[in-house]
């Protein structure tokens, strides 16, 4: 039995630096200067799940991204971590895509990869459940719809129960759901699913010789313009702004006991009953 798994990955600005994000007041664009680009953290959990399946059985792990040309770096990282091959879908025609257009483009990328392999379909497509920057968390579900496959989101447990059959757990606010599922599937995985491995020096060396293919608009001839890029996106961006959440704070000084007494009076003044 072999598993052919595709893992969708995204380059994101390092979440540690989001406090540095500003808006250019004239051009109304987001300025993220000086913020390094990373492989979206939870995408590493998706990659790890794929690698574990390949190691247990056999098969392949394919990393796919729809992103600007510099995303080749994070795909190279996915190869260094252990993916066998990588595809970057990159074209101005794909730019400005919302989640529906992004998932459509990924769908056509996956179909083309399958076609190149003589029509052998992927068994499983894994995504991180959300990206650190946009965090819409919508791409995995919508990709499942384009593929016409069942899909689950926020997966934190994945156990094989038989040939290409799994018992899956997804997170709920106050608990979880359990599912029985057969492949093919699209899963949006949560960070609790596993602990991603570190990139080894050997991995980095090997990655240099692994195939990284870049495809543009003309490489996806079956895709229709009506669903691609900004023009093919049903949602359109309007104004952007940074919310003003500032409050004019009063500094409380004194001994811990004095400060505690002030906080108690603040609680009382705001209708909090203490001691009946």
């Amino acid at each position, binding site marked *: 039995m072999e598993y052919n798994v595709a893992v969708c990955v995204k380059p994101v600005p390092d979440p540690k630096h*989001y406090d540095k994000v500003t808006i250019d007041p004239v051009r109304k664009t987001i300025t993220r200067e000086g913020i390094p680009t990373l492989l979206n953290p939870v995408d590493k959990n998706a990659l790890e799940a794929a690698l574990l399946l390949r190691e247990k059985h056999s098969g392949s792990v394919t990393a796919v991204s729809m992103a600007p040309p510099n995303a080749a770096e994070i795909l190279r990282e996915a190869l260094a971590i252990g993916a066998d091959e990588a595809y970057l879908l990159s074209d101005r025609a794909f730019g400005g895509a919302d989640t529906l257009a992004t998932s459509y483009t990924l769908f056509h990328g996956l179909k083309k990869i399958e076609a190149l392999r003589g029509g052998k379909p992927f068994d499983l497509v894994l995504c991180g459940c959300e990206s650190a920057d946009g965090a819409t968390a919508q791409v995995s579900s919508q990709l499942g719809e384009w593929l016409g496959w069942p899909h689950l989101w926020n997966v934190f447990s994945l156990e094989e129960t038989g040939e290409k059959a799994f018992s899956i757990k997804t997170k709920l606010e106050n608990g979880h759901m359990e599912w*029985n599922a057969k492949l093919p599937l699209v899963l949006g995985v949560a960070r609790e699913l596993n602990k991603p491995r570190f990139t080894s020096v050997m991995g980095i060396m090997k990655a240099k010789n692994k195939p990284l293919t870049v495809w543009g608009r003309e490489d996806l001839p079956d895709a229709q313009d009506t669903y691609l890029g900004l023009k093919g996106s049903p949602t*359109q961006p309007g104004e952007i702004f940074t919310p003003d959440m500032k409050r004019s704070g009063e500094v409380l000084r004194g001994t811990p006991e004095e400060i505690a007494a002030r906080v108690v009076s603040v609680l009382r003044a705001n209708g909090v009953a203490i001691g009946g």
Partner: protein
Amino acid sequence: MSKKIWVHAELSDGKITNVTFELLSKALDLAKEMGDGAEVEATLIGTGLDGEAGRLAEFGAKKIYAADDPRLKLYSPVTYAPILADLASTHSPEIYVFGATAAGSALGPTVAARLKTGIAAHCVDLQLNGEKKLKALVPSFGGKVIGEILCPGKIPQMASVKPGIFVKKEPALAPKAVEKVDLRTYAKLLDAKALEPVSAVRRPPSGLPLNEAQVVICGGFGVGSQENWNRLEELARLLGGAAAATRPAVDEGWTGEHTMVGTSGQSIRPKVYIGFGISGATHHICGMNESGVIVSVNRDEEAAIFQVSDFRVVGDGSVILSALLNAVKAEME
């Protein structure tokens, strides 16, 4: 025909979730603003729905489309999404909103993909623009940036909103009008085996739900230890409130993810929020900045949390926590 604003009503253990009522309240405001007799309607999927459908009417839903079947007891995108998408195709609501819950965050975009329409995720506000089209305000970069999202050319214009963003208002009392969805055409789908929900396991609620608490005592990495965390929880309990956390505190293992406040956790708006050892990363702040009064304790006077605080205490969180715990205990004697 008057325009419709739809709310998808989510059930948890057979009961309508709070976020549903929050969304209905907002939808009623939007319908009023839209004018021309715009009405709010709801969709509901599950089993044994009669009682809960009545609750939706109480909160202003003029009509409820109910898909009622034992095989729909548990949420599944495979069964729920086609039913909802078909309903929306048939009735053409102008706007359709979902709770951005664990289930709704997946179901909303699934329905949108089937309808080839747009959905704005995790909105912090829903407004109408000059043309009475939906203008959804969506956070990105952990809440540092808010962007407007429009869906100009398609209906329904869809959005998901996290629990705690909108305020649940008093009942608006519409007469109960339920239209049962004919499920015969879905027979194959309902019996399909490719993806089957087996069970939903929910923890019994321990104490007050976070987004219903009037006082929230929140801790960050600076709380420092499990022992301090236990005292923070004790303080919350004594005040009749709830304890909450930032991501780093959850990562330390002091508390569970269900207590997390922020973009990837819950949104809260208690009367009083007291934060200990929280630096104030944007993705936390945008989950709590609607709180009535914000008191923050942090060792670092440059901490970002102070920018959004009404009362600032520069000091050791564990020392102030102990002092406050003692003061509250003394008051209670």
